[in-house]
């Protein structure tokens, strides 16, 4: 598959240079490439951004009780299914 944007390599379409000049140009090329990266990703897509936790939601007492009731119910039914499974093995 074609990648429309490959990182440019030093020396490509560039006049010959030497020593510190090449190093500086490489840095500029790298910086341009990184700038391009920033343009292709949304700011909140970067790992540095997604690794920041989202703020905790405040749940009402009614929702919290509802969630716990559902959780307890599901655990009880799961235990029933596991018991039945083990019973059927005998």
């Amino acid at each position, binding site marked *: 598959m074609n990648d429309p944007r490959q990182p440019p390599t030093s020396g490509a379409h560039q006049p010959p240079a030497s020593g510190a000049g090449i190093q500086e140009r490489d840095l500029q090329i790298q910086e341009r490439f990184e700038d391009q*990266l920033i343009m292709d990703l949304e700011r909140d897509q*970067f790992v*540095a*951004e997604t*690794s920041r*936790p989202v*703020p905790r*939601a405040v749940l009402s007492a009614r929702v919290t009780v509802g969630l716990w009731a559902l959780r307890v*119910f599901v655990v009880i039914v*799961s235990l029933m299914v596991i018991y039945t499974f083990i019973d059927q093995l005998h």
Partner: protein
Amino acid sequence: MSTPEVAAPPLLGRVGGPQITDEDRARSHDRARVHDARRRSKRWYLLWLLVGPGILAMLGENDGPSMIAYAADGAQYGLGFFVPFIPVLFAMAYVCQEMCMRVGAVTHRGYGELVLQRYGRVWGWFGAGDLTLTNLVTLVAEFVAIRVGLAYFHLGPGVAVALGLALVAFTLSGGRYWRWERIVLGLALFNGLFLVAAILVKPHVGAIAGSFDFSPFPGGSFNTLLLLLASTIGATVTPWMIFFQQSASADKGMTPRDVRHGRYDTAAGAVLAAIFGIGALIAGAALLAHDGSGIQGFAGAGFPEALQHVAGGAVGTVFALGLIEAGAVAILTISASTAYAAGECIGVSHSFNSSPRNAGVFYAANAGIALLAAVVILIPGAPLLSIALNANVLATVLLPVSLVFMVMLANDRGLMGAWANRRSTNAIGIAVIAFVGLCGAAYGIDSFLQAIHLVGS
């Protein structure tokens, strides 16, 4: 709540901009192609670039136990009721999976980490615990399916284990989400073998068309009906799909601009999965007219053989190959969902775009759970067929909690903004949760009461 930090991947420091990791670079390459396709108005190419998580979630759920369950439904009850019921279930799956895709594309975060961060560690770890339990049981069932398929070709369980683990290792070796997704997508299309099997049994087209009136309703005891409903629901919507599609959508780099294509992807997956599932049902229904030929064995090694005797060697071969494919693809997607959940809940790097060095927990969880399931099927005398048959039921029982948090996330305006659920989506979502919860709970309670002899069978 403590702050989950991503384990430090190699960062390139930039002044005034975000820190860029290798994961960002890999994702950015994929996004550059999307931007390029959009800019040049290459519509089909854009669609090709953006499909993946939806089709993989849906076809991944057309796994070994599910296809055996569909075929068993066909063999026991014929086409009536189940031919229209399967599309209804996949329509339900679409509603749930579309929410996962949307939340992943808008927040760029997986389900596990959002539940953990937004609602607290207890709920996050409960969800991850449910997922790990159901995934382990389901993965054992996937290896059983591969083993059943290979047994048709006189190959033993060792080959099933080697094949499954080799596939996991191969797909993990690339260090890129795109590569992983395309390999698994290519494999998943062979789920169409079940449609080939259905065509090969030469079904009566009129009978298929006539079955869309949901009749005849399956007979048998109340408990059998509940088991059928619970296992068939568990064959279409499961906790791993929720974790997988949201995390994979984020890992793929989808954004709110891609939600429309994400819907196409999810809908295409649902349609393909329903067609292939009905294919397995029709192939299984070939056994109905033979007074239960192979019925005793169809839950296990007898199914391809039974089809071979009744409908010919080609049908048996195609069905056996289909079971191998269904098991293999599910091993890859279910292991991936476990890896995403582990990385998200522990708070370390969790992406196929990260190298194994930078995302050790992610890769270890991915390979580790597959290895654990493989070890179980090598234990002599392990009740593999019972595990395979109960995997879907357990998934159905545990599903409502995952679905409730999914609906809560999709309604969270603080996270989703204008992309939050509409009222109609909520109404359907709540109806799906109620239906799944009732069927799972009714089966669990009724079976338990029978097991302790409080009610008769």
